[in-house]
């Protein structure tokens, strides 16, 4: 069965024009990367800047041209699609739409009747605790609230695969930890397959079923590790701290 893996990445190579290089000179950001993700797994991709983690997400999202193969449920990826929802670090909310309209956007694109899409939007706005802010515009919300709206919007579109590009990186530590817990609460309800990009080791081991560490020049998998700790996890759990140490070792030994 081709459908054994939800996502199958084979020989993924992405090159960009070299900065200050001669015309035509390219730098390989990812070089022959292989990766599989089974359904319902929460995967965190971790690594230092320039290791190609966002490039990997962009390829899977269909934003980036690449060499190699990426199969989503057995079919090649050839562009963005609603089945693969994306949460951006910069939120990506439409500032001209209010919160309700932003969350309704996906269902509206599916030509869903107004009442039905309103009902869906209300469900997800309630889920992220922003019922009182339905008619507010994104520019009037804090960073944490914007990211909650972003989560509600992507979930309201009922994607099969949730791609998150450092969604909490721009938030303060307190908000970040709160949103991590909220994300896991939401995830526990529908167990949607997730690829979460981060450069925070603690965030990765707190959230993920599996952590993939990429190293740069060119981007390659340096560590692929299952986090075998039941949720909800205690951030100070010695088992989690041990996982963190193992990941740190790989990251810092790779930098030498």
């Amino acid at each position, binding site marked *: 069965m081709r459908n054994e893996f939800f996502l199958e990445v084979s020989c993924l190579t992405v090159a960009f024009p070299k900065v200050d290089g001669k015309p035509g000179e390219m730098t390989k950001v990812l070089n022959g990367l292989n990766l599989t993700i089974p359904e319902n797994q929460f995967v965190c991709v971790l690594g230092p800047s320039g290791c190609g983690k966002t490039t990997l997400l962009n390829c899977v999202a269909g934003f980036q041209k690449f060499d190699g193969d990426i199969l989503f449920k057995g079919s090649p990826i050839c562009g963005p699609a609603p089945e693969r929802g994306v949460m951006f670090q910069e939120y*990506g909310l439409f500032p001209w739409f209010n919160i309700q309209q932003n969350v309704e956007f996906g269902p509206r694109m599916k030509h869903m009747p107004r009442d039905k899409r309103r009902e869906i939007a209300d469900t997800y706005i309630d889920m992220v605790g922003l019922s009182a802010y339905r008619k507010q515009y994104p520019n009037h919300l804090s960073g944490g609230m914007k990211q909650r709206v972003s989560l509600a919007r992507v979930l309201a579109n009922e994607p099969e695969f949730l791609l998150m590009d450092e969604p909490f990186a721009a938030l303060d530590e307190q908000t970040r930890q709160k949103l991590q817990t909220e994300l896991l609460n939401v995830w526990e309800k529908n167990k949607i397959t997730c690829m979460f990009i981060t450069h925070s080791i603690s965030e990765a081991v707190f959230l993920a079923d599996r952590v993939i560490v990429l190293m740069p020049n060119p981007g390659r998998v340096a560590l692929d590790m299952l986090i075998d700790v039941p949720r909800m996890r205690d951030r100070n759990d010695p088992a989690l701290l041990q996982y963190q140490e193992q990941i740190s070792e790989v990251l810092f030994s790779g930098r030498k």
Partner: protein
Amino acid sequence: MLIGSIGIVGLLLIWQLCSMNGGSSNLLPSPITVFERGIELFANGTMGKHIGVSMLRVVKGFAVAFALALPCGLIIGTNKTVNRALSPLIELLRPIPPTAMISLSILWFGIGEPSKVFIIAWASFFPMVLNIIGGVQQVDRIHILAAKTLGAGYFSIFTNVILRSAVPNIVIGMRNGFSMAFISLVAAELIASTSGIGYFIQDARYLYKIVDVFVGIIVIGLIGFLINMILLKAEKALIRWK
């Protein structure tokens, strides 16, 4: 409001002082004389008639310019090839002042209304089209990507993302375009007019009615000021999300 009126009050005081001391009252009538004459011209309906004619011309010219600038701006802004092909042409035509087009407009459209509308449309087209192009080009890539992942097709992206994100620039372009339409009004009404504020000023000049010239100029300034205020309010209402 109070601070904003300091400049206007200051200018009126200086004007009054200059008209009282030294300046020829024929060439520089006092603001009070101008005000009284203005009231008289409004009361007997003369000024109302000229304002009505001029406003209709401005609106017609502006509407023609907007009807052309919106599709042109959207197409040029969204299509790189069209942009490369047409940008040099726009940059070539843009600096040509409306007054330089008067002779051509008479040859093309005669001395009737169309030539006046053409001059006004010429003046207001370029600020609008350039602002619309800029607005479309400034659309944030992340909004387009987000729309794509939420299932939007090209048409939906155009109407829900590109057009909406360009609205602030379109409104600014409309405001600039309207200002230019007004600025070009006097030039347009130089063409064999028998009515309009521009004509009124020209006629007053030929008849050496200096007070009337002042009234006409001030009326143009006041109308422009009021329209700008209305457009600013409209801009605020349209772009509540900013």
